[in-house]
């Protein structure tokens, strides 16, 4: 008996990884939809899905850190709004529109140049504000010992309030944005959209942080067993704070990309987004009670959400209505999550059966 288990060891070890199972489900889903609508399986559509989900992936990677320590953040939409609004106001105030004469194909033409604060400063401002919000969340939860749901719920009100006041209730539209910001989410490099590049960068950073850095591993330790962590000399409050700062910073970045994509910044941008982000994590195998979850899984979870979303459009089951889609999406997320649990349970039952007493 032992010999046989050894032989299949490598393969079964591969399948034990949750992420592999999820990837398989994803491929099957992709192919099934492709049968109905071949356009779905084209490479360009795959890229489109990736581009479409990139923002959610960035947020989900941040949420992963927060969930790992056993916390949660439901104020991310508010953080996105506030950090983006801050950047929006800066760009609006410094906006400088000029007509420039340019020679094109031998013909003199005029081009409107829209310049403002350098993009990098806008990004830093947005991410900085996000980090600050995250830090406040973290302080309340880690040092104030307010339950994460209550703390981030309260912070959500406060952050929306702040964003309302700095904008005086006004939105920022395309006319207020410099070219650099509009291009922020549209530029391509090596044929890939900038959102994908940003997502990949965030993924690599988070992956390396969670895999190779002490502070990253401490996120797992704190979420897995808080008391043991204390005995290992890990400062749980500091680790929790760090997780929330990461979440806030990434919410800032995601907010800017979101605003640039939609070319408008409003109070209610991304409202309700937290649900999709948390669902991505759960589908991706992150435990809401902490200590479990991988960056790769989260990416696949978000991608599953993206594929579901895109498939609903491509299958034209739903007409054009956005909410039809959302209703089905809610049901699909729920089924995905429930199926995950059922698989997990049957696995446990099998383990029990094989167990010697």
């Amino acid at each position, binding site marked *: *008996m*032992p010999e046989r*288990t050894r032989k299949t060891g490598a393969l079964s070890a591969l399948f034990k990884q949750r992420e592999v199972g999820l990837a398989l489900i994803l491929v099957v889903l992709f192919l099934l939809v492709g049968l109905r609508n071949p356009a779905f399986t084209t490479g360009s559509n795959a890229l489109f899905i990736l581009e479409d989900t990139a923002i959610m992936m960035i947020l989900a990677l941040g949420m992963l850190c927060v969930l790992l320590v056993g916390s949660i953040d439901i104020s991310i939409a508010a953080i996105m709004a506030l950090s983006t609004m801050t950047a929006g106001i800066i760009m609006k105030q410094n906006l400088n529109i000029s007509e420039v004469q340019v020679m094109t194909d031998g013909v003199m033409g005029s081009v409107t140049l829209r310049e403002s604060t350098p993009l990098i400063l806008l990004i830093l401002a947005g991410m900085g504000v996000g980090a600050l919000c995250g830090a406040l969340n973290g302080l309340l939860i880690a040092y104030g010992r307010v339950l994460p749901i209550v703390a981030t719920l309260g912070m959500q009100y406060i952050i929306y309030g702040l964003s309302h006041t700095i904008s005086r209730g006004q939105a920022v539209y395309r006319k207020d944005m410099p070219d650099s910001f509009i291009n922020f989410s549209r530029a391509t490099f090596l044929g890939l959209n900038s959102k994908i590049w940003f997502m990949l960068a965030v993924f690599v950073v988070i992956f*390396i942080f969670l*895999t*190779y*850095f*002490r502070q990253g*591993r401490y996120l*797992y*330790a704190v*979420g*897995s*067993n808080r*008391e*043991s*962590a*204390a*005995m*290992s*000399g*890990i400062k749980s409050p500091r680790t929790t704070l760090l997780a929330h700062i990461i979440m806030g910073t990434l919410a800032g970045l995601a907010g800017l990309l979101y605003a640039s994509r939609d070319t408008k910044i409003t109070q209610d941008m991304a409202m309700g987004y937290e649900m999709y982000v948390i669902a991505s994590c759960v589908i991706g195998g992150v*435990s809401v009670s902490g*200590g*479990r979850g991988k960056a790769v899984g989260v990416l696949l979870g978000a991608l599953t959400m993206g594929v579901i979303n895109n498939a609903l459009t491509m299958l034209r089951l739903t007409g054009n209505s956005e909410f039809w889609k959302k209703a089905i999406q809610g049901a699909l997320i729920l089924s995905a999550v429930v199926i995950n649990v059922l698989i997990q349970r049957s696995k446990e039952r099998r*383990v*029990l*059966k094989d*167990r*010697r*007493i």
Partner: protein
Amino acid sequence: MQKEGLILQMEGITKIFPGIKALDDVMLDLRRGEIHALIGENGAGKSTLIKVLTGIHQPDAGIIRLNGEEVEMTDPLAARRRGIAAIHQHLATYPDLSVAENIFMGNEQTGGKIPAISWRKTREQAKALITSLGSDIDPMAEMGTLSVAQQQIVEIAQALSQNAKVLIMDEPTAALSLRESEELYSIVKGLKEKGTSIILISHRLEDIFSLADRVTVLRDGRYIGTWDIRETNSEMLVKHMVGRTIDQFYPKKTAPVGEQILKVEGLSRTGFFEDVSFTLHAGEILGLTGLVGAGRTEVVEVLSGVTRPDKGRIYILGEEKDITSPHEALRQGVSLLPEDRQKQGLLLPWSVQDNITLPRLDLHQKRGILSPESEAKTGDEYIGMLNIKARSGRDTAESLSGGNQQKVVISKLLTCGSRIIIMDEPTKGVDVGSKAAIYKIMCDLAAEGYGILLVSSEMPEVLNLCDRALVMREGRISAVFIREEMEPEKLLKAAMPLDKSRKGNAEYA
């Protein structure tokens, strides 16, 4: 100040918890390279003393000297840095993480100049440590999937990785088979030879006699004495631990055994126990013993409706019953005193009387509204009857000592009027005085015609209280003894698992 060869001295250690003096002027010294046993009844203060030594608790008085130098263990990390490592009763591990990572958490292996963790180095060093302990656990296995014995080896490896000079082991063999225990002890002896000093807490006196050099006894948070192991014998140690001789401690049970009230036939729950059959009679105290993890708690959980069996029949007063929930069990006349008093037995922030009335709120209703007077009356009644030390029924359960908390849980059972009472480790973490009181209550109940199923790991309890004893081993009942046949060696032999290697389980470490 330093006496020759002493690595550790603890003097005058006192620790106060709200309402209780857990340690009162306790001392302990440890020689270099010795195995020092620390023994005492449940609640004697052993674990608290260890927690003070490892910096989890701060003492309210007393000093700790390490190599003659006075030190302060401000936090667990400080203790670890000074080379004190502990393997706690409740394993302090990260179930979601790998073995290698568990070993090096907080002490990560980085690869040279950059601060990044080197997983290769971590894995190799973990492998080396585990191999040095004579084990072949896969360093990349997930900690939560290992057996308790394997997890303990990982914890020892962790202590070694930090160059521990003092290793504390709190009940390391409580859940181990005989072979596993032997393996663990050979590891411990090996460490001793290499000069590590070891504090060993164990319930098994025979282990202590075969391993330890000296022994220190605590009782009710006080220091009783330290002896060279050659100067003592087990009778003497038990006397010091209990503080009186056995026959004073255990009341004489006189109740006659009556009719059969519970019969269990072929009860099984996959993965936990198999084919369990026995009977319980009115006026009987039936012992159910065996090692931790042998399936005792799981059996009584099925009987009290907490979990459902896969197979088997339960007859109560001759009638077959399907016990689907604890609610149903209470209605059928089966009450359980659960193993974990704080998590399963009590609502800690609630008052004593609210706890007592919870199972039978229907008795205190008047036209659908609860009557505070009726509840207070019942509360006071039981406080008086069981001599619960509380100022009033409105004291919160968490403000009581362990023994009195246990009496509150017993009160809850009594309000239900069940004839079958199951008690799962009723004296765990209870002081000696309350222990005697609980034994007396049990005998009184038996005399009144209740049938009591006593789950216990404490040999003296089973030997002195029970009319019959069932022994479980690996999920099955391995032996039944009547009172006259009960002997410690026989019980132990029936409880000890057969050598697992003979079953051809090669993957088992």
